[in-house]
């Protein structure tokens, strides 16, 4: 039972890992993007739209385009969301919280709207949005996973998007600590005026970090629909996972390598109520608040300890205007 639990926890954690890695990159540039939940919806639905048109138009469904088309659509969709956010907050210097919340409203709206009306708009004769064929390609696990017992189940049974999430997190972590670009990016988030004086193009860093961050976060939505949900889109099915991803950023102290473990812990907390015996429906609801309570405790703990490193980027949430003193 423990193996199954851990495996489910990892699968729950992967969308959160994508979301939090994306948000960490964004926040490192000083942009607090509260639009991540909306971006993840858009990433998911764009993948679904891509798969929908490919499945309904192609005569023979081949594995490679069946994976690449949704993947590309998802990346483009979340890139556009990132561009909207960057244009408003960086170029037009709008308030980040308001822009982010508006983006979440917009993105969830897009997800649920197209999820609910795609069939009608496309005048298709499909009964429901179920991308089983595409999903099967996405969910292809390593071929020898089944033969290796518990080891195979725990470490090798996932799809390529799950491994990609972990690899991306490790790369990003390395990028922050060991490259000049990573150092510059952190400088922009800590003190944009100083970074600017040192010759770093603040706006360009903010744009790139936000857009790349959005694309990574969008993949979380894609993983959820295509892998976790077996290719079935259901409105609001993605739920509050986007906010949980933002919580994970705090929990991981703005470090992607921590959020790999954090995502498994959060995933475990998210489904723990299924594995505790003899509790009623009502108590299950109390169990579901665990990830949020843990995040609050971490937030309190790091601020009381007041160690500067773990409080997040110093200029988080502020627009930068060179001529402002």
């Amino acid at each position, binding site marked *: 039972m423990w193996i199954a639990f851990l495996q489910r926890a990892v699968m729950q954690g992967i969308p959160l890992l994508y979301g939090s890695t994306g948000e960490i990159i964004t926040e490192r540039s000083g942009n607090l993007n509260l639009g991540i939940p909306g971006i993840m919806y858009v990433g998911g639905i764009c993948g679904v739209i891509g798969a929908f048109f490919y499945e309904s138009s192609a005569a023979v469904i081949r594995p490679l385009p069946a994976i690449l088309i949704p993947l590309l659509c998802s990346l483009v969709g979340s890139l556009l969301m990132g561009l909207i956010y960057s244009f408003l907050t960086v170029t037009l210097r*709008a308030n980040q919280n308001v822009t982010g919340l508006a983006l979440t409203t*917009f993105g969830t709206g897009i997800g649920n709207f197209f999820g609910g009306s795609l069939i009608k708009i496309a005048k298709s004769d499909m009964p429901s949005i179920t991308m089983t064929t595409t999903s099967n390609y996405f969910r292809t696990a390593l071929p020898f996973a089944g033969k290796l017992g518990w080891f195979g189940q725990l470490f090798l049974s996932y799809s390529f998007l799950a491994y990609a999430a972990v690899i991306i997190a490790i790369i990003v972590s390395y990028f922050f600590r060991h490259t000049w670009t990573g150092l510059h990016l952190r400088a922009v988030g800590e003190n944009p005026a100083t970074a600017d004086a040192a010759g770093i193009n603040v706006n360009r860093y903010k744009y790139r970090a936000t857009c790349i961050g959005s694309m990574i976060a969008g993949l979380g939505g894609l993983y959820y629909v295509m892998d976790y949900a077996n290719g079935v889109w259901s409105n609001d099915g993605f739920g509050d996972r986007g906010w949980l991803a933002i919580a994970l950023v705090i929990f991981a102290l703005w470090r992607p390598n921590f959020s790999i473990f954090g995502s498994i812990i959060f995933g475990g907390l998210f489904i723990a109520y299924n594995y505790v015996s003899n509790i009623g429906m009502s108590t299950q609801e*109390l169990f579901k608040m665990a990830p949020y309570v843990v995040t609050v405790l971490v937030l309190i703990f790091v601020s009381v300890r007041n160690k500067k490193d773990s409080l997040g980027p110093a200029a988080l949430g502020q627009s930068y205007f060179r001529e402002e003193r």
Partner: protein
Amino acid sequence: MHKSHVREPRVHLVKRDGLPWWKAWLIRIVAVVLALIVCGIITLLVTGKNPISVYATMVDGCFGTARRTWNLFQNLAILLCISLAVTPAFRMRFWNTGAEGQVLMGCLATAACMILLGGRLSQGALFAVMIVTSIVTSAIWAVIPAIFRAKWNTNETLFTLMMNYIAIQIVSYFTYVWSVPKGSGQIGLINSATQAGWMPSIGGHDYLINIIIVAVLTVVIYIYLRNTKHGYEISVVGESQSTARYIGISVPKVIIRTLLLSGAICGIAGLLIVSGTDHTLTRSMVGGRGFTAIMVSWMAKFNPMSMVLTSFIIVFLQKGASEISTIYGLNSSFSDILTGIIIFFIIGCEFFINYRIRINAKGEKE
């Protein structure tokens, strides 16, 4: 022939010192018109109907019948009330993203009183208990992050955000505990036979009392922020915490006091939702209005009077778009897309109010 490598940028931004109010409003109106055009185009693409008839449908959805008009004003009142709640905190740059949870705790407190005390107290005493508990519960929920912010500078945006989901799960828990029938997870109408704890209707109109309460509250908050010592202290803390300390204002005290007020108003909103409108309790009954309120308040530049207008725009769009979705058989989330677009435009236009763009004619030619 040494050429200087210093390039002058083509575009130069200058902060404006203050635009005449009519010019600022002109810019905002242009932004809303542009947004409506974009929304019209999108609606056209999706429904294939001409935009003017689409907007006519929206107006009809809002004002078509007396019932719809009452419904519109009822929604306006609730959204305005939550926006009023978040405003004092925003004026001191305390980013309270937790109104959703604070209102929900008010709903929970009201519903608890109605369920546990309904029929045991007289209607008047029940109302007194409901008002006090909802206000106190929400105020406590709001003041927890404020205390940590005031004492240890804990990030309030993220803290209040997390408190929303804790509140949602607590309410979820109680919807199972009090569910009718047991275990269904749904409460249904509370006290539907006795109507204990239901806001009375005035002159046959169910929602009139909600609207009156919020109207009074709007004026009170307007005066509080503009003409009282507290309001002044809030503005100073928002402008600069060092200035505030210098002139002898205790910043932690102002933060905690203001969040108690914010929470208290959220409690009133919760009371109006449960006792004045829905007479039930569900985990999703605030329905994202805690977040929408942030945008309403911000678009109005934190001015309670302008908020009447901005919350009207949002409510109009939502009601109108849901009418469009019903008529054309689309998903009701269409309104969220339109709301998003309008807000993007309104947020974006503030830039042209605050900054002037100077284009350097010479550029890099030499």
